[in-house]
């Protein structure tokens, strides 16, 4: 591993801009690293070295010509395989889309390319982002770089693992119920789910449209913030995307740089802790809160009484939308097509969907179809929508007495691969702390707060901010990161075991 792959994105961007190093060298270093360790980690589904190097060369040429580009120009990035990127297959880790080549770019990808980032390839995820461990991927699980026999989180385990294994300095994730934050937590990396609507969903395969949000992932808070500023902004192609204002429009990177929490009121959510939470996780969480207090923050305990219903609410709304969004994969126009030459339309649809979707996708399609069925709609989907409103109201009430809310990102550290595959409910519990945020459409991020004393694995600290106050997430995360790094004397990821470079 060369030194280059261990550098921050901001530092890489600076060196590339000043021509101390070329984007080509950095990009090539990433590919060398991927080649060396991805056999064990399996973060990537597809890479395109030639194309990435060409893109890097183009950036180097522009910089050599004196062009002033953004702070991340020439920096490599990994993109979750849920975003359309023309020229590479987009599969959502599903057999039903295996080999599908999107004829267009997602808005996020467009913004990355416009900012001069170099796309290395597409990362693994749970099939259609339905899962918390990448184990539902049709192409096999990704392994946690901290312990290869453990899950890297999900659905965005590929993106998080690519960061933690130093294959890429930046990554894009998507978060429907915690798919950015939970992987960040269990891999000792940073991930932020921006406010719903802050990042365009155009060109990102829909999971649950009212919950989905793409966001930035990196190895530190400032890099995450720089990437955040690249991808946010209103997009006329997404009717639910919102206009940014205030600090958000100026950019969150400034707030991340300031890392100041003096006088900030931090609310600890009573309901997100206690029974079912790993003691080591709770311990590190409480210590982190104290670190923020020492940095000048005020702490209050707040209650969000409806959060106890968030999992039930989520598992009605999410599958309902999934069941509809996944209808189009019917073997008629693209993707997997099954059924003999004499098969009727219906038979082709049934056979293609039967063969193309994995068990978890089918489970959620069935759940959602049921929840929306005539006679059940009011009891299930309708009640869930009402509860969703109450959960959002809990947040609103809490924000009357504090500026941000905090909680552990996940109840436990990374569990073992295979441990929960046969127990969907146990698996769903991984997203207990992250789900309320998606239901309310607000912003939250996860930042590492140390290793759990009971198993030595990373613990994530979740910061939740009101809608369009994403900058506060960065403000608190940066302060915590700075204090903990100082305490420790080095970034947490330096403690990650070195991955054998040999395959």
């Amino acid at each position, binding site marked *: 591993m060369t030194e280059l792959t261990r550098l921050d994105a901001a530092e890489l961007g600076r060196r590339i801009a000043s021509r101390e190093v070329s984007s080509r060298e950095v990009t090539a270093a990433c590919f060398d690293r991927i080649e060396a360790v991805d056999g064990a980690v399996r973060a990537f589904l597809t890479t395109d070295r030639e194309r990435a190097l060409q893109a890097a060369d183009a950036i180097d040429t522009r910089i050599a010509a004196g062009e002033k580009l953004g702070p991340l120009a020439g920096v490599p990035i990994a993109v979750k395989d849920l*975003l*359309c990127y023309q020229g590479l297959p*987009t599969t*959502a880790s599903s057999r039903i*889309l295996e080999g*599908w080549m*999107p*004829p*267009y770019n*997602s808005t996020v990808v467009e913004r990355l390319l416009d900012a001069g980032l170099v796309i290395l390839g597409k990362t693994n995820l749970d099939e259609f982002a339905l899962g918390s461990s990448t184990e539902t991927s049709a192409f096999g699980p990704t392994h946690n770089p901290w312990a290869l026999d453990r899950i890297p989180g999900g659905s965005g385990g590929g993106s998080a693992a690519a960061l933690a294994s130093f294959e890429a300095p930046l990554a894009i994730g998507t978060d429907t119920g915690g798919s950015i934050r939970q992987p960040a937590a269990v891999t000792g990396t940073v991930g932020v789910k921006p406010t719903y609507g802050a990042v365009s*969903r*155009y*060109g*990102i*395969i*829909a999971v*649950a*449209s*009212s919950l989905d949000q793409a966001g930035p992932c990196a190895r530190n808070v400032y890099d995450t913030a720089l990437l955040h500023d690249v991808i946010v902004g209103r997009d*006329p*192609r*997404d*009717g*639910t995307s919102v206009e940014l204002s205030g600090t958000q429009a100026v950019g969150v990177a400034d707030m991340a740089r300031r890392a100041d929490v003096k006088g900030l009121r931090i609310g600890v959510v009573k309901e997100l802790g206690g029974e079912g939470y790993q003691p080591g996780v709770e311990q590190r969480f409480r210590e982190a809160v104290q670190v923020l207090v020492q940095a000048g923050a005020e702490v209050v305990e707040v209650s969000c009484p409806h959060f106890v219903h968030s999992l039930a609410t989520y598992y009605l709304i999410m599958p*309902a*939308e999934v*069941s*509809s969004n996944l*209808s*189009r*994969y*019917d073997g*008629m*126009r*693209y993707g997997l097509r099954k059924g003999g030459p004499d098969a*009727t*339309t*219906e038979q082709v*649809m049934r056979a293609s969907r039967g063969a193309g979707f994995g068990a978890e996708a089918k489970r959620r399609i069935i759940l959602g*179809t049921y929840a*929306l*069925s*005539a006679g059940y*709609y009011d009891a299930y*989907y309708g009640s869930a929508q009402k509860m969703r409103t109450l959960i959002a109201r809990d947040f609103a009430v809490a924000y009357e007495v504090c500026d941000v809310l905090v909680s552990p990102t996940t109840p436990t550290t990374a569990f073992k691969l295979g441990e929960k595959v046969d127990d969907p409910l146990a698996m769903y519990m991984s997203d207990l702390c992250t789900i309320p945020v998606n239901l309310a459409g607000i912003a939250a991020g996860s930042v590492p707060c140390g290793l759990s004393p009971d198993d030595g694995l990373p613990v994530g600290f979740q910061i939740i901010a009101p809608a369009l106050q994403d900058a506060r997430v960065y403000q608190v995360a940066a302060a915590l990161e700075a204090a903990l790094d100082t305490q420790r004397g080095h970034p947490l990821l330096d403690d990650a075991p070195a991955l054998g470079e040999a395959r």
Partner: protein
Amino acid sequence: MMNDLMDFDEVLARFEPVIGLEVHVELSTASKMWCGCSTTAGAEPNTHVCPVCLGLPGSLPVVNQSAIEAAIRIGLMLNCSIASWCRFARKNYFYPDMTKDYQISQYDEPIAFDGTVTIDVGGEPFTVPIERAHMEEDAGKLTHIGGSGRIQDADYSLADYNRAGVPLIEIVTKPVTGAGARAPEVARAYMEFLRDAVKALGVSDARLERGNMRCDVNVSLMPIGSEVLGTRSETKNVNSLRTVEESVRYEMRRQGAILAAGGRVKQETRHWNEAGYTTPGRSKEEAEDYRYFPEPDLVPVAPDAAWVEQLRESLPENPVSRRSRLRAAWGLADREFDDVVGVDGALDLIDATVAAGASPAGARKWWMGELARRANEQGCGLDELTITPKQVAEIQDLVETGALTDRLAREVFDGVLGGEGTPAQVIEARGLAVVSDDGALAEAVQAVLAANPDIVAKIRDGKTAAAGALIGQVMGRLQGKADAARVRELIMEACA
């Protein structure tokens, strides 16, 4: 396929017909409902498509604001309440003409609801209650190859998604009762009203024969004296004014025969056959579950009240009052006026021609005569002829002032329709002006008189009918470009 039919009068003696109409109006917005693709029909298959209307993974719909405006204006024209806040909903079903396997429609929150329209049924007003008007997207078009031409036994099917995502407004009536014997005419007149209304609004091409407007006709019978609605059939593919009327009449007679024989009318969709009967389609006894839910990809529609008022104030004249106004103003015979109303586009064109200065009778003469014949020959609509009402008015004016004869006017139409330019340019290029120069006329008359001394003698003997032969010769010399009456005058003067 023959169904037993009851005599129409007997149906009326025993039952009260109840009709309900669901009309889909295809809007003529420049772009589709959710994307920028063109709505123009007739293009090569799958050329007006993009990731959005193809429903490709990751694509998202964005509402076309002009479609919302059109929907509100239609709602206002139907005297509906306009929702201050409403959402789109997904109607989920698997079918290959729907690229997403769900249709974005509206469910329990239509943009417009609770209206009434008073239509003109053979000179009598009739009020049709409107349930709702809502927005939705059209599906693609499937062509089934082999077998009977239906999907069940086709060898294969071709899908064209040019139409996928074209904006539609679905207008649904409440059950219409009290029409009695006039039920078929009411259905027709209502459809005619909608056609004229959306045309007046300029929101649709409103051509039934091209599927711009499609009507599903619901019919049921209620025994006289009963208050309980009978089981209805829903006839699809009813795509002309005439067949709307015929299908109501047919279903009344078919259902009457079933009920009279002690049978039960099945709740089903039926298919209108151009030969004049309906055949059963999909059974609706077990309602399909579309699993409607609010469309999460689109934000709610919340039209500003002031804007709605503005739209209300700028509505065009109601087609029914417009019709009675024009009927009175033009002074045409009732039969002539009814003919005009019956021809797609004729009323508007004649109105515009009159506005450009022509007399109503003159304007009617050309549009319903010569021009209708030519449109028919070309297989196009009157309003698709390449001549404007203003040009027709110009030509008619020249006829009235004697500068053109009817025969010459027809030549001018030839030229204009043939792309030779404006009427003035055609007259100039083809040399079509009537010879009104008395010198030239007198010269021709003199020459003809000199060549026909015997006929001149007959005229002088008082046999004035003989003048006809001379007029013909003069016209011949002038290639018909003379006013025959004036020629006659000159001949009579010379023979006096």
